């Protein structure tokens, strides 16, 4: 059960979790939520994406995780547009019979999302607006899932 949502509305975790928990064979649910940090001078964050290609990339990731870890459910919800500190940017949830599969698949999805899905962050910090630079650590985190690692 794959669910991919890219949307400007706030992310309602409740409803998303209920769907994932209802997946057949769900004994273990892992989630990851990314927030706009409230404490390091960021005023607002704006997320741009590549309509169509983004949803396709996220769906491919969810399909890969579902096949590799035999997931009962994989959900990726990514917010786009402007958002405020403390708000949720991204929510990933996985359901599996046992915890190792759910937790590993959840880590895989957020690691790969960071490098494989076309999103770009622009943040306003101390009154100045700039595009966020990609981080080398994201490439490294994504790389460890390749080649069956």
């Amino acid at each position, binding site marked *: 059960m794959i669910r991919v949502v890219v949307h400007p509305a706030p992310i309602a975790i409740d409803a998303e979790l209920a769907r994932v928990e209802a997946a057949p064979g769900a004994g273990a649910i892992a989630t990851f939520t*990314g927030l706009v940090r409230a404490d390091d001078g960021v005023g607002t964050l704006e*997320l*741009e*994406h*590549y309509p*169509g*290609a983004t949803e*396709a*990339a996220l769906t491919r990731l969810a399909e890969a995780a579902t096949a590799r870890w035999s997931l009962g459910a994989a959900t990726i919800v*990514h917010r786009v547009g402007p958002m405020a500190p403390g708000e949720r*940017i*991204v929510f990933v949830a996985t359901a599996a019979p046992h915890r190792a599969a759910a937790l590993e698949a959840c880590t895989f999805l*957020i690691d790969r*999302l*960071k*490098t*494989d*899905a*076309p*999103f*770009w*962050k*622009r943040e306003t910090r101390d009154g100045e607006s700039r*595009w*966020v*630079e*990609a*981080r080398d650590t994201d490439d490294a985190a994504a790389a460890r899932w390749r080649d069956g690692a």
Partner: protein
Amino acid sequence: MAIEMLYFAWVRERMGRAAETVTPPSTVATVAQLVDWLAARDADSGTALADRARLRAAVDQAFVAMDAPIAGAREVALFPPVTGG
């Protein structure tokens, strides 16, 4: 053949447009050659696309390397390294 170009993030801002339709000559065979050709059109495009090391591309919505062929491509997107999540 006509190609729909899409630009995102600071590439879009520096190009001053989000999309355009271009018709490169048949000698333009790869993404890198397409970028060179676009950059040579005018000073603004040249400046916008100057930082080649930080340019990434997708052909028909699939991420590709800069030496990927564009034969038959309908849509080519240029953008910085992604920063989602």
